[in-house]
């Protein structure tokens, strides 16, 4: 399979666009596995994004500010990622790849950096320094704590 891939790679010359060379090398390589991996990432991404969207909207009226909902979602994701990374060490190769794809799809999609930065900027431009400091500090300290407790629990005794 690698022989085929490299021959396609070498054939990527003047008349062939970069895009078609990439597609051909994918087809020559384990295209089924690539497709299955992409499908797993996508399958994780959809419920991850839905859960974040619904959870933040659901929590919004219960919290003084919307950004606490985003912070909560991000902290849960950090804890879960720590758990997954800790568990991975005691898994076989196949299970490890599956976990990696699911955590890339689901947890990566569930947690968000762009909304966090946008909400931080909103607080900064409104000169609500206390809110900005609480959001930033809570995210950093809380995120690291959540991640480490996940790692600790996942690694086991």
């Amino acid at each position, binding site marked *: 399979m690698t022989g085929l891939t490299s021959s396609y790679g070498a054939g990527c010359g003047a008349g062939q666009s970069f895009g078609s060379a990439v597609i051909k090398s994918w087809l020559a390589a384990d295209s089924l596995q690539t497709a299955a*991996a992409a499908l797993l990432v996508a399958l994780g991404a959809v419920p991850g994004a839905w859960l974040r969207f619904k959870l933040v909207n659901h929590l919004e009226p219960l919290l003084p500010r919307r950004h606490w909902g985003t912070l909560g979602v*991000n902290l849960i994701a950090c804890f879960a*990622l720590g758990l997954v990374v800790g568990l991975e060490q005691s898994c076989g190769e196949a299970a490890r790849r599956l976990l990696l794809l699911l955590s890339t799809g689901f947890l*990566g*999609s569930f*947690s968000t950096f*762009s909304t966090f930065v*946008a909400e931080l900027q909103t607080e900064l431009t409104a000169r609500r320094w206390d809110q900005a400091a609480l959001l930033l500090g809570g995210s950093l300290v809380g995120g690291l704590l959540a*991640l*480490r407790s996940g790692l600790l629990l996942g690694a086991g005794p």
Partner: protein
Amino acid sequence: MNRRALVDEIWALALVAAGAIPGALLRWQLGDQILVANLLGCLLIGMISVAASGRPRWLLWGAIGFCGSLTTFSSWMLELNRAGLPVLASHLGGGLAALLLGQALSRRGLRVWRRVRSAAGSTR
């Protein structure tokens, strides 16, 4: 739930999913380059939030679906836990700068667009 609310709900979920899938696949293809994914997401959310303000469907697809899925907080924390301060500074400083750049680009684009449209209207 009445019929109208149900249709709106399904639309919202479909738009978020339609943004989340390409966002997650792009992040997956970027591999270890979480910084690239996060900065690109901040740039795009800056552009979208200005260009699509007051258009909830665009925001659902672009901001909540695509950018939310493309960027990741948990992997940032994992890297921060491993590599410390440089990761903190690059993501936070870069993210805020990218967001501001996106907003500025979008505002400029909107201004040009309005000028072109009003010029086209006056010649008619």
